[in-house]
């Protein structure tokens, strides 16, 4: 229709054409989605994936996060070889898992292990949103639970960086139950006097936001991270009104008393070190 030409349409991300792909080598440059500055990916990585011109926090992979926090060479990974099954016989689920394993070089959506942060030992769990949107199924629930159990056993603090769209649909109610399982492990940790620091990164929503991510002794978030229980679209459909632009951002949660602090990535290691130090002298 002719009038379509004149109406403002929402812009969607476009997939580069084959020709464009040949002209610009994949991943050489990155465009910031906030300020649209185009920069060298290498430079961005050096800057902890934070945009130099506007401060937008780009996603980090699990290992990038671990390298940015832990003292070099100190990380020892747990349960690296644990992989998921297909408990509901859900069509194409196994293929999707396999595709994500190839794409991300990860076996699942969370990496767990232990290491030192400026000399302080800690158990860490870092989620990776590239693997099935960081969703929590049996493996994510089990790996996090096991990591918490090690933290209890060794009397180490537990640090978790969440990045997840929520529970994994393809494992149905088993995914839902991982919320109870991980929360029960945190209850045990808490009873033991153990410290849990939760850092919510973009995005932390649904069943992950409604379980371990919200249960830290300290709850932090990275600037601009999307954090919430229900999806924005569902809420808009339910209440039939537009939501404020900053709805469900880290800053929105801070304003409403749901977070202790919003912490820029560059200050993260220093702040966590301070907390570990304060707790050590308790």
């Amino acid at each position, binding site marked *: 229709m002719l009038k379509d030409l004149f109406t403002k349409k929402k812009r969607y991300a476009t997939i580069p054409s084959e020709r464009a792909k040949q002209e610009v080598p994949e991943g050489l440059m990155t465009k910031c989605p906030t300020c649209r500055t185009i920069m060298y990916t290498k430079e961005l990585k050096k800057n902890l994936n934070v945009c130099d011109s506007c401060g937008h926090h780009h996603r980090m992979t699990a290992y990038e996060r671990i390298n940015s926090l832990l003292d070099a060479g100190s990380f020892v990974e747990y349960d690296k070889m644990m992989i*998921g099954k297909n408990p*509901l016989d859900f069509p194409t689920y196994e293929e999707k898992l396999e595709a994500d394993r190839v794409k991300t070089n990860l076996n699942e959506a969370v990496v767990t292990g232990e290491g030192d942060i400026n000399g302080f030992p800690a158990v860490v769990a870092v989620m990776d949103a590239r693997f099935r949107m960081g969703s929590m199924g*049996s*493996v994510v629930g089990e790996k996090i639970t096991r990591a918490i159990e090690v933290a209890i056993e060794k009397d180490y603090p537990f640090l978790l960086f969440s990045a997840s769209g929520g529970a994994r649909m393809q494992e149905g109610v*088993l995914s839902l139950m991982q919320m*109870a399982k991980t929360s029960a492990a945190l209850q045990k940790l808490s009873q033991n006097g153990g410290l849990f620091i939760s850092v919510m990164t973009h995005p932390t929503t649904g069943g992950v936001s*409604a379980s371990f991510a919200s249960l830290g002794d300290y709850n932090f978030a990275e600037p601009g991270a999307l954090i919430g229980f229900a999806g924005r679209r569902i809420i808009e459909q339910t209440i039939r009104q537009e939501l404020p632009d900053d709805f469900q951002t880290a800053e929105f949660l801070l304003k*409403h008393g749901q977070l202790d602090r919003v912490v820029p990535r560059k200050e993260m290691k220093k702040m966590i070190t301070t907390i570990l130090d304060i707790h050590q002298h308790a």
Partner: protein
Amino acid sequence: MASELGFERPIVELRDKISELKTFTNEKEIDLSDEIEKLENRLQQLEKDIYGNLQAWERVQIARHSDRPTTLDYIEYLFTDFLEMHGDRLYGDDAAIVGGIAKYHGKPITVIGHQRGKDTKENIRRNFGMPHPEGYRKALRLMKQAEKFNRPIVCFIDTKGAYPGMAAEERGQSEAIARNLLEMSGLTVPVICIVIGEGGSGGALALGVGDRIFMLENSTYSVISPEGAAALLWKDATLAQKAAESMKITAPDLKELGVIDDIIREAKGGAHRDVQSQAEAIDRIVSASLKELEVLSKDELVNKRYQKYKKIGQFTFVNDTNGVE
């Protein structure tokens, strides 16, 4: 007859026919008893075929039936001296969750449950049984009180899910649900959870961490509603029926997945056909469970509950064919 569902139509039609013939026999004094007997046999067979072989989507419809008994219905049948207690002491009172203290066979108990309405007016007041954070915080307050006074807790689960609204997010829907999961796992009194209608996602689970988890035969328990799953997985909410079948959300499915302890049988056609006998069936299983749980020490109770959830999930290890748990 109570409002019937689409798949029940053949049964209803046959029943109507039989009663028509019976009236005819009486009025015209023509003996049709052979005919009637034949039809009654067929009705029995038909009921067995339909009710004995309910598909997931049919169970979803029964679970959502407007006549289906709610938390307050069961409370009336099961407990005496029920006193409803209101409010979370932080923000407000959420009518989508009810709770209070009562006596159960003469002994003190705390009972909590999602509460939906039976008509539009009540549904609006109770927000269709979809709680806000203050509902979960009220529930937790009552549970901690039960723990303090050492009385067991019964939770009835019956919600489409936690309410997806702006105010709910502002007041910390995620934190409220998460806090309940954590605290419930550590309660030092017996906790029995029964899914009586729809068990929708985190909003259901927030009353669902206990020592025994039961489901009524035609209730459902799922990570997302069939409509939501269809919209998310296939971008088409009208495929809800297909989603219901593939998501494994019925009581027999959950028993097989090792998530629930047992299924509580329902009357033919659903709990709303016979609330009294449904309450009796619930009573039997709650009584038996409490007997088993009351002998456990506080530590045993909490440890067993922890192990119960710890073993839920399915995974394996690469290069290890025996590592299946």
